[in-house]
């Protein structure tokens, strides 16, 4: 059943460039990038119970890593950008994570927010390195060593880059699924539910939180590196705290209790944002109202609503099938 559902979703995603226009196809590109980011974010939030408000720090690191490699060092291979983004995020996340995971709840959230804003300030003020508020260019990268620079940008984005992003998301999803289904994943969930009890059962709470922090940072950076080629530009707003807020919003919108919930949240967020922005200028007002509605009436997000509906159908089917 689950495999059939995934096959349908995969078929729909793969057919988008053929059935949808260029505009909607390119809207899918940030969806793929944010999906990778959210898979990592939810390992930390949904599976480990730590809410980061500074995840944009690692998205920024990934995006700027790709920008530096292509526009400063002339390294055009996207695979190199993804690896460099992951390595840089891991290096930065190791000491920051070691400090942050000593705290929980609001203290953890505020610490991550503080580190995110530190990086934002760095991007903004160190103009000679980062380009300041103008940001940096991300040149059209080579994909699997193929130089596609002769291809018009829109064809590049809706063709090879689209399927490359799908492939990266597929690998990231598979790896994350293995992680959450592993003994390590069980330990993370035990920490989320009851860290005190977990420690008494021999689970090294701080160490495992640290591992989860670093994995989520690497995912954020890989997603960040995928964001750059779409617009051809990165700027400090990628590392601004409202961007971290968007990540939290997407997760709540889709539902953090479901593995695919944040991905659904990303898809709905991106297309809803586009629709609302084309109708009213105050899209943040509309999104604020949606967030308030979600927290009060649907804390499980869209996937939570779907799960509840499926459970009701199952209950009804049992009643119908029950002997009278």
């Amino acid at each position, binding site marked *: 059943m689950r495999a059939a559902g995934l096959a349908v979703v995969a078929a729909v995603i793969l057919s988008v460039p053929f059935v949808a226009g260029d505009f909607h196809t390119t809207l899918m590109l940030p969806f793929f990038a944010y999906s990778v980011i959210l898979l990592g974010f939810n390992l930390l939030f949904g599976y480990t119970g730590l809410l980061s408000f500074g995840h944009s720090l690692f998205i920024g690191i990934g995006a700027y890593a790709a920008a530096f490699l292509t526009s400063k060092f002339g390294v055009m291979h996207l695979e190199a950008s993804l690896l460099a983004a992951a390595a840089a995020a891991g290096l930065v996340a190791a000491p920051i994570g070691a400090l942050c995971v000593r705290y929980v709840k609001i203290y953890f959230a505020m610490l991550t927010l503080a580190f995110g804003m530190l990086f934002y300030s760095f991007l903004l003020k160190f103009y000679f390195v980062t380009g300041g508020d103008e940001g940096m260019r991300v040149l059209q990268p080579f994909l699997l060593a193929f130089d596609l620079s002769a291809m018009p940008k829109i064809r590049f984005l809706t063709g090879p880059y689209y399927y490359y992003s799908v492939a990266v998301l597929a690998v990231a999803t598979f*790896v994350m699924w*293995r*992680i959450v*289904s*592993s*003994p*390590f*994943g*069980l*330990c993370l*969930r*035990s920490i*989320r*539910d*009851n860290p*005190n*009890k*977990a*420690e*008494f*059962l*021999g*689970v*090294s*709470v701080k160490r*495992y939180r640290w591992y989860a922090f670093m994995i989520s940072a690497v995912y954020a950076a890989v997603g960040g590196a995928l964001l750059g080629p779409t617009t051809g530009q990165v700027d400090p707003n990628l590392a601004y705290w409202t961007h971290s807020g968007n990540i939290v919003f997407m997760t709540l919108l889709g539902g953090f209790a479901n593995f695919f919930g944040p991905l659904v949240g990303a898809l709905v967020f991106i297309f809803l944002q586009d629709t609302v922005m084309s109708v009213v200028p105050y899209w943040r007002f509309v999104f604020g109202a949606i967030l308030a509605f979600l927290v009060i009436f649907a804390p499980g997000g869209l996937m939570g609503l779907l799960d509840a509906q499926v459970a009701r159908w199952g209950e009804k089917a049992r009643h119908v099938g029950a002997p009278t």
Partner: protein
Amino acid sequence: MGREGQTRGGTHVILRAHDIRKSFGEFPALNGVSLEIKEGEFVSIIGPNGAGKTTFINVVTGLLTPSGGKVFFKDRDITGLGPLKLSGLGMARSFQLVNIFPELTVLECIKVAVVSRLGRGRRLFSSLARDQEVHAKALEVAELFGLAEKSHTPAKKLPQGDKKLLDVASAFALYPEIILLDEPTSGVSTRDKHAIMEILVSASERIGIKAIVQVEHDMDIVFGYSDRIIALHQGKVLADGTPEEIRANEEVVNTVVGRKARALGRGA
């Protein structure tokens, strides 16, 4: 171990507390507690509210650092060691209030301990569902505690008695050498208390636990299952002896046990 008239403790001391002191501000919760637990013993710690029973368990199991004194486990000084290291050395505990993982299933709650004991926690990419060894060992413990049929039930949906059992079962799944139980039957109906104790004693025999220390208020349970009883009062050891010796101790009867309870215990 446990149940009146059965095997009594050996001679090898597994746990020793020497002059343990613990103060919360001006209040001395433990005021020089010294005691020994031998292999094979089922020891109950009793005392009125505020006597220092739970504080003592918390100090021994690393949840609290003592203000003074030493704790030795298997002749090793473990004073100040945290729960993580103590679990690795072979010490486990359960809590007065139910302490489970509410969103995990019954079997997953037990698997956490099994995964930890087998050192599988750092396996990031192996499938937990396909790990037959972890599954078999967790199921074995679930069966010992009568929870196997509820393996896939979320822990938060269990009745109170089963939650209490699950809390203890997950600690047992560490296969510890000593286990400290803080009121294992609290919040459970009188009818279920003896059933829980029977499960607990037989599971400890199957698993090979060398000593059990429990804090308990129910004198029926205390006199019915203990090899030795230690009475605490105002942070000090008031008495330490066999159930018969404790029954005969007028000071303990007057301050801790109560005359009605003594009569009950005699009938057990």
